């Protein structure tokens, strides 16, 4: 379980997160939605304990499988060596990862589909490939909680699909509490049970995707008229999608 309870974060006089409450139990996925600059990342950092709370409290296990937006790293390490760092908490200060730890890391790379470039230098991989390696590292921690900061923001459509399929399959397993931030409501529709909408007035709307990711709420969230459309997915089943009805857009 991970979440915030009446959490408030201020930067100077500005209140970025105002009495925010939500919780994600094991087996559910939450998408934190909102345009850029609305405090999504701050809420996420607060939840992880990287951001001091002015009020309220947080709930999180001591180790969280965290996937940063980009990994700032000037070391040139192999992807497998990045993934094995997920074992750090289990090893403590002075121990080195052994064969079992590498086995866990390899399993995680297999799970995310990154095993093919396990031996490649991490910094030579594409953005999408790196994202999958970092997700494998998060899985390798063994934590029941996964937190992803804008996991799809820097990815092209193909890689977005790969990532969302992966997140969805992790959701389906119901073994983990998953939280990710995104500015695209369709990502929530693709891989989340619940959504948290960071509204412009500082309030937040928290509830199941089916109720919260609806045109009326989204219009308030983004300040853009939104429409829901039904489309058939690759397997033929119907999918719901939301689109902005931009004023300048026209058909034909």
């Amino acid at each position, binding site marked *: 379980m991970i979440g915030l309870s009446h959490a408030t974060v201020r930067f100077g006089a500005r209140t970025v997160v105002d009495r925010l409450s939500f919780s994600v139990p094991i087996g559910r996925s939450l998408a934190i939605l909102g345009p850029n600059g609305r405090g999504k990342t701050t809420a996420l950092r607060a939840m992880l304990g990287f951001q001091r709370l002015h009020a309220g409290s947080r709930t999180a296990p001591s180790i969280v499988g965290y996937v940063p937006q980009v990994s700032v790293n000037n070391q040139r390490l192999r992807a497998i060596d990045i993934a094995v*760092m997920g074992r*750090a908490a289990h090893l403590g200060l002075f121990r080195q990862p*052994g064969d079992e730890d590498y086995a866990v890391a390899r399993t995680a790379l297999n799970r995310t589909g990154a095993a093919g470039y396990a031996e490649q230098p991490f910094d030579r991989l594409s953005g999408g490939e790196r994202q999958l390696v970092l997700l494998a590292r998060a899985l390798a921690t063994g934590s029941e909680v996964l937190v992803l900061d804008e996991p799809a923001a820097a990815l092209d459509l193909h890689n977005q699909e790969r990532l969302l399929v992966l997140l969805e399959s992790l959701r389906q397993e119901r073994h983990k509490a998953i939280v990710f931030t995104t500015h695209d409501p369709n990502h929530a529709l693709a891989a989340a049970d619940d959504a948290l909408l960071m509204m412009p007035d500082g309030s937040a709307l928290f509830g199941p995707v089916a109720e919260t990711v609806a045109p009326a709420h989204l219009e308030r969230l983004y300040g853009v008229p939104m429409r829901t459309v039904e489309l058939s997915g690759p397997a033929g089943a119907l999918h719901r999608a939301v689109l902005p009805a931009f004023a300048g857009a026209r058909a034909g």
Partner: protein
Amino acid sequence: MSEGLAARNGIPGGTPTWTRTTLVFAALLALLAVSLLVSLCAGRFGVPVTRALALIWQGLTDPSAPMQAMDERIVLLVRVPRVVLAALAGGGLAVCGAALQGVFRNPLVSPDILGISQGAALGGALAIMLGIWGFPLIAMVFVAGMVALVLVGFLARVSGRTETVTVILSGLVVSSVFAAVVSLLQFVADPETSLPAIVYWLMGSFSSATWERVLIASPGLILGAALLWSLRFRLNVLALDEAEAKSLGVRTERERWLIFALVAVIVGSQVAVSGIIGWIGIVIPHAARLLVGHDHRVMLPASILLGAAFTTIIDTLARTATAAEIPLGVITALVGAPIFAVLLRRHYRERSDR
């Protein structure tokens, strides 16, 4: 053999870079062994190589044998402790630089950054001025280095947290203050006695190496380096972004200070017995990175071996090239700065090629 070495380096699983890493380590060990042997056989006092080797063998097999002849004492009481001290200090400085460059995520960082060297320098200069020699001098140097680190820690902690940049800036501030006091001491020092002694000491030298000094410095050097080495995987994680490292269960701040304290123990022990020796802590980790890559699990031991060999060679030059001792700082700067310039250019060229 290759299995054993790689397992010791802590990287299980067959990988293509392994054989290369194993070869590099074999070469580094050979380099260190050769430089130690050459250094033991070289000196201003003529001792034939075979005699020198026989004496070293005698020292190893029968260390309690009384030493009556000059060549015995030269080899066993002057050269061996000096070579041992140079190798230990070089390995220690190099591993400090490697660890700090990881912690600061900055390849241009060196052990001087924490103010420890300047603090230790002040302790030494003060001791020389006060006419304190021997063990009390060494103790003063060590304590002053630690005081500098504590000051940096105190300054860098802003509202209960320590940021990397505040550590660097605090180190700069403390270094400047200590350097200023060292300058002040030089200003008031007796130009006939303490001033040249301070100046020489600030330039670094192993010329006063004795077994006693080896015994004083080696616990700190060996223990510090061994602990840093055992933190090698942790350093990989610490070198990540703060949030990433924390999410992986690293108590970043506490562990960073643990590393700083270990660096202080190593640098304090080194400066106490051989003065300020620059460049090794910055150049050697770079060279090690080029040879074995960035992974601290192989980079730290490579830095230790390379640092030990490099310092042994430099010190051999310093004591044999002329009848006069050449200050180590002069040679490390003359050799280190150009190497560093080449490495730096290579580093950034590679980066822009990516």
